[in-house]
Structures are given as C-alpha cells and as structure tokens.
C-alpha cells in the first residue's frame, strides 16, 4: 500500500484508472438520468419538482463526503507527512466547493416552488453555507502560502476544525425546527422514501461518487507534476514530451513516457 503512496508510482496508476472511473461515471449518469427523468413517478405532494432531489441530495451528500475525505487526508498529512495525502486534500477542496454550490443552488430552486422562498436562514441551509465558506477558507490558505508543506499544514488544521460542521449539517433537521425537511434516506430504520424514488436517487449518488474519484484523480495528477517538478522522473516525463515534435522518427517515444 505504501508503495502506491509515492507520487511517482501513483501518477501513472491514476492515469490508468481515470478512463475506467470516467466510463463508469458516464454509464451511471446515463442510467441515473433516465430513471430520474423518465421512470420515477411524480411525488404525491411535490409533483414533478421532486426530480430536483436527484441532483440536490447527491450533491449535498458529496459536499459533506468530500469534506470528510479532505479533512482526513489533511490529518494523515499532518501525522504521517505523506505527500500524496496533501495532494489529495488540495485536490478535494475545489471539487467539494462546487458540490456545495450545486447543493445550495438546487436547494434554492427546489425551495422556491415548495416553500415559496429562494432562501431561509434555517439551520440546515446556514450550516451548508458555512461548509462553502470552510472550503473557500481551505482553498485560500492552500494558495496563499507558497511553501506547499506549510500550506498543506495550515489548510489541514482549518479543515479539521471545520469537521464539527458536518454532524451539525446532518443533524440540523432534527436538532432545530427547520424549514428544510428531515432526512428521508439516512435515518435509522426504514427510509421514508418510496423505492421508485430511492432507486434513481441511489444511482445518481453512486454516479456522483465515481465522478468525484475521476475528477479528483485528474486534479491530483496536475498537482503531482507541479509539486514534483524538481524530481528526475517529472523532468524526464515533461522533456521527453517536449522533444517529441522534433523527433525524426514518429512513434519512437518510449512507451508510457507521456503518461
């Protein structure tokens, strides 16, 4: 396992994994969208607007999941000083921030027809907005400090402190009297959602999960190149790609060199 934590080993491995995760994402999204838009029946209370749920809920789940991954990767970086976890934490932040934006925006688009308002300062919505600010804070720290090691440490500490917000988001609908409806899938016991709505929701959630892995790997590869530019393998990788157009014989590039 430790071998794969070396950026040099991970870089080509990620390159080989991306098409598989990307393909799985495309397939799951196609099936999920078909179920979400054509198969799922309209809700008996919310009518066709319930279809927003198939975007909103997976985005909200991912916004929290990516945050926990980012904080855990940051913590692992603090404890074990592993470069790859710092790379992972840094790659998670913008993706998680985008999922949070999507959750907030689709929540707003769902809230307007259902509750009659685009926005309410209720506990669920406010804590999700705080999550966005936490992501932005982590990203600001990561980019404001030049030394990647120190940047990763500062961002990891902020991310770890912000983890308290995750249970607050999750339990906000139980602890406070919110405009936001209570959890219907992740509650203990039987989910309060009909199977015909649950199936597309879960497919979309898995699709979003595969999507996250795909784009995280893409970002991690860029991050690795940047951070490892002083190493021999990155120098060779970039320069062999650089020399390629001048090469007299086409196709004599060493296999895998362009990664």
């Amino acid at each position, binding site marked *: 396992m430790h071998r794969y934590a070396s950026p040099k080993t991970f870089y080509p491995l990620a390159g080989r994994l991306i098409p598989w995760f990307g393909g799985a994402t495309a397939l799951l999204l196609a099936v999920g969208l078909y179920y979400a*838009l054509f198969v799922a029946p*309209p809700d008996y209370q919310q*009518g*066709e*607007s319930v*279809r*927003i749920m198939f*975007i*909103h809920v997976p*985005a909200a789940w991912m916004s929290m999941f990516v945050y926990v991954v980012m904080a855990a990767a940051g913590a692992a970086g603090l404890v074990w000083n592993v470069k790859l976890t710092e790379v992972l934490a840094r790659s998670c932040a*913008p*993706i998680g921030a*985008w*999922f949070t*934006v*999507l959750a907030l*925006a*689709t929540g707003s*688009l*769902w809230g*307007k*027809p259902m509750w009659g308002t685009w926005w309410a300062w209720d506990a669920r919505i406010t804590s999700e907005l705080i999550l966005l600010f936490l992501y932005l804070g982590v990203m600001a720290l990561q980019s404001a400090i030049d030394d990647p090691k120190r940047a990763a440490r500062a961002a990891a500490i902020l991310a770890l402190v912000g983890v308290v917000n995750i249970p607050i988001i999750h339990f906000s609908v139980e602890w406070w009297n919110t405009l936001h409806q209570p959890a219907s899938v992740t509650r203990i016991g039987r989910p309060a959602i009909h199977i015909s709505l649950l199936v597309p929701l879960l497919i979309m959630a898995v699709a979003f999960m595969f*999507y996250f892995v*795909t*784009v995280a790997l*893409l*970002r991690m*590869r*860029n991050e690795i*190149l*940047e951070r490892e*530019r002083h190493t021999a393998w*990155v*120098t060779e990788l*970039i*320069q062999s*790609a*650089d020399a390629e157009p001048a090469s007299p014989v086409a196709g004599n590039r060493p296999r895998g060199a362009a990664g």
Partner: protein
Amino acid sequence: MSWSDFFAMGGYGFYVWTSYLLAAVVLALNVILPLRGRKTVRARLRAYYRFNRQNR
C-alpha cells in the same frame, strides 16, 4: 405523456430544468478545469526546464 408535458414538468419546468442545467455545467466545468490545468502545468514546466537548461 407528450414531450411538451415532459418539458413542462407539471408547471415546475423552470425549476427542474435549471437544476439539471446547473448540474451539467458544474459537472462539465470540473472536468474541463483540470484538463486545461494539465495543459498549463505542462507548458509551465516545459518553459521552466528550458530556462534551467539555458542558464546552467
């Protein structure tokens, strides 16, 4: 069910389709940004190595 019913979404068409459109934009953006990032990182590193070679 006709296509116009489908697009109307029981009167919620604007909210439903804006949500799906936003999702498409966000998902596409997070693929495009790292792919463009890959190009800029590689270009920057190429220039960086060239500069180092010339000033060695």
